[in-house]
């Protein structure tokens, strides 16, 4: 049993070391805890969002907020829900953060929202995850979203497609929550606006499926009028490559949310398919207004590449946090939430609002078509049509109905 004694001694020593780590601060800055994925395929988005956030903070901290600085600390979730919960609790219980921010993983966002933010009464601002359930049916007082969600994206797609003559649709995508949520939202809205459309078939593949040629071949054989692809992240690249390799875009119209995303089109370079319809809530080249140009210029100067949509979300998150604390007048979580509700701030895409009823930021959507650009050596979105926030947002009544169920 001496082993057990040794075990006790060792664990006490460890505990002693660990306990000594956190130090108390006297007049402490405002602390923002960021949990996001900085490893694996989603890391590209996590890092971009963080850069946008840091850029805004640099500016905010020059002036300070309520005479303090805003500090942030990051935790890597590895795209795992259990680690996200672990890290979120660590930030809340040990680091005592005032605001939680995160993450790209919608499962993790929902988990932290329900099991940490709501239970510990700490505001959580979700900035990349696109699940509409975060501020929709699972929304509550302590969760906010600074990004577009599947309901908005799907509605944008539905509105855009309803203006086209297509009737027979094929729906295909990644077999996980995001894919199905986009598909449902797009179809719901399209059907409402244009009741004669019909689905002639669906295909779902496992997220990250490397070889999509068999799926595309079987879709083409059925000759639909148009195809709705519901995919994202790195699967997006695989889909675009398969579309290019099979020449699908020349044969049938395609809509994919985020097909016009810079993070997808840039690595593809000249290999990107042209003529694919896509929707985005931000482009570094659009809207071409002074505020956006200034943001892009500062971002490129700091990080060497133009901002993607996560950087934009990160940027406005920081702006919202600073503005809400200024409005609240004190570093108090409840007052912060009251101040953030209905708050309007200036952003690179013009004035935006944090809607009071569901804590969802109101963002416009840009519908465009991929096209090679002489200016860049990769494809960009062209013929952009702006769908205003009011056009693509579910109404407050719809949200309340979803929450009431």
């Amino acid at each position: 049993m001496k082993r057990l004694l040794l075990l006790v001694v060792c664990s006490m020593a460890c505990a002693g070391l660990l306990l000594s780590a956190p130090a108390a601060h006297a007049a402490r800055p405002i602390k923002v805890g960021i949990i996001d994925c900085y490893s694996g395929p989603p890391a590209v988005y996590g890092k971009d969002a963080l850069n946008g956030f840091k850029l805004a903070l640099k500016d905010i901290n020059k002036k300070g907020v309520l005479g303090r600085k805003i500090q942030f600390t990051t935790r890597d979730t590895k795209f795992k829900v259990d680690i996200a919960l672990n890290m979120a609790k660590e930030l809340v219980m040990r680091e005592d953060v005032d605001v939680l921010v995160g993450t790209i993983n919608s499962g993790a966002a929902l988990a932290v929202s329900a099991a940490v933010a709501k239970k510990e009464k700490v505001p959580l601002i979700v900035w990349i995850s696109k699940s509409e359930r975060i501020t929709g049916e699972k929304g509550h007082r302590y969760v906010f979203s600074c990004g577009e969600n599947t309901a908005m994206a799907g509605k944008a797609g539905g509105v855009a497609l309803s203006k086209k003559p297509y009737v027979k649709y094929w729906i295909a995508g990644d077999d996980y929550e995001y894919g199905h949520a986009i598909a449902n939202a797009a179809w719901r809205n399209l059907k409402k606006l244009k009741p004669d459309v019909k689905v002639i078939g669906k295909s779902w593949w496992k997220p990250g499926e490397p070889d999509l040629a068999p799926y595309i071949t079987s879709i083409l054989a059925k000759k639909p009028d148009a195809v709705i692809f519901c995919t994202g992240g790195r699967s997006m690249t695989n889909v675009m490559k398969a579309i290019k390799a099979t020449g699908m875009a020349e044969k049938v119209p395609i809509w994919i949310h985020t097909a016009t995303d810079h993070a997808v089109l840039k690595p593809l370079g000249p290999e990107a398919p042209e003529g694919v319809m896509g929707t985005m809530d931000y482009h570094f080249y659009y809207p071409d207004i002074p505020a956006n140009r200034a943001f892009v210029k500062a971002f490129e100067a700091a990080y060497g590449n133009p901002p993607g949509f996560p950087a934009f979300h990160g940027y406005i998150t920081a702006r919202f946090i600073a503005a809400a604390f200024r409005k609240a007048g004190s570093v108090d979580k409840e007052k912060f939430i009251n101040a953030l509700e209905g708050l309007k701030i200036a952003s690179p895409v013009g004035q935006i609002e944090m809607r009071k009823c569901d804590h969802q930021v109101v963002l416009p959507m840009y519908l465009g078509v991929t096209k090679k650009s002489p200016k860049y050596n990769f494809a960009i979105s062209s013929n952009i049509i702006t769908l205003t926030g009011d056009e693509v947002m579910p109404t407050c009544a719809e949200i309340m109905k979803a929450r009431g169920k």
Partner: protein
Amino acid sequence: MRDSFSLKTIGFLAAIFALVLVLPLVIPRFYTYTLALIYVMALLAMSLNLVVGHGGLFQFHHAAFYGVGAYTFALILTKTAMPFWIAFVAGPLAAGLTGCLIGGFCVRLTTLYFGMLQIALGSLIWAIVFRWYSLTGGDDGIHGIDMPSCISSTNASYYFILVIFTLCLIILYLILKSPFGITLRAIRDNPERCETVGINVNLHKLAAIVISTLFAGIAGVLFVVVERSVFPDLLFWILSLEVFIMCLLGGWFTFSGPILGAAIIVSLRTFVGTYTEYWTLILGVILILLIFFLPEGVMGFLAQKARPHERGLTAGEK
């Protein structure tokens, strides 16, 4: 294996128990929570070690049973009006039943084949959970599950988990000490000879799998008590691999090694993770150092240091 506890041993155990009882009163809340999480992972690793260390089976997809336990518990709590204790019992039972089914297919196979068939079968369960949106919430999972108010605070859930964990440890210890445990180790060390003396090897293996999956189910239920969430990662093979590593790291020929392995991995993940995003790199380096310098696992090493004349509690012929 020793047959009786000496007075001294009982004293040590009592001291440890007293220590973990008072800890939550003096340490910050986050550490209480982390300790509770360590108990959960430790129970999971202990249950795995019953079949890996003592049974010599390549149980590669242990997390599947952990996840089944957690999901059953969570689903009964959220989708039905049944009382807490029914859910609490149903979780481990469902896990044990799954273990019996999967184990039934697997016991005919050996070594890696056993492991890979289990991974394939376990992954089928994972795929069902991942896709069955209306029931399991799909890849988003189920979150914010309400616990009875008596175990909802951090300290209360800690004590609840501590009590269950201690009970499970005692039961596991008794099982390993029983004739069944001894037979199991005999089968691990020499299956052919056991077969010839009339032991039903496959039946013993299956029984061991069912027992271990029952305990994995309990660990799954306890996880939900701590985190109030279930999600498909709980049944993914990566978690199984991690738990396997906990056993190897702690020392899989010892009784308490997996506890130490779980404690090391969970603490590394939690505390190195706060300093660097490259914590898997650091974990990898630490693992390699341990492999080189502590070949018997950490607990195996401690056991040797403590009593050089004797190998660990259940050291085999390896």
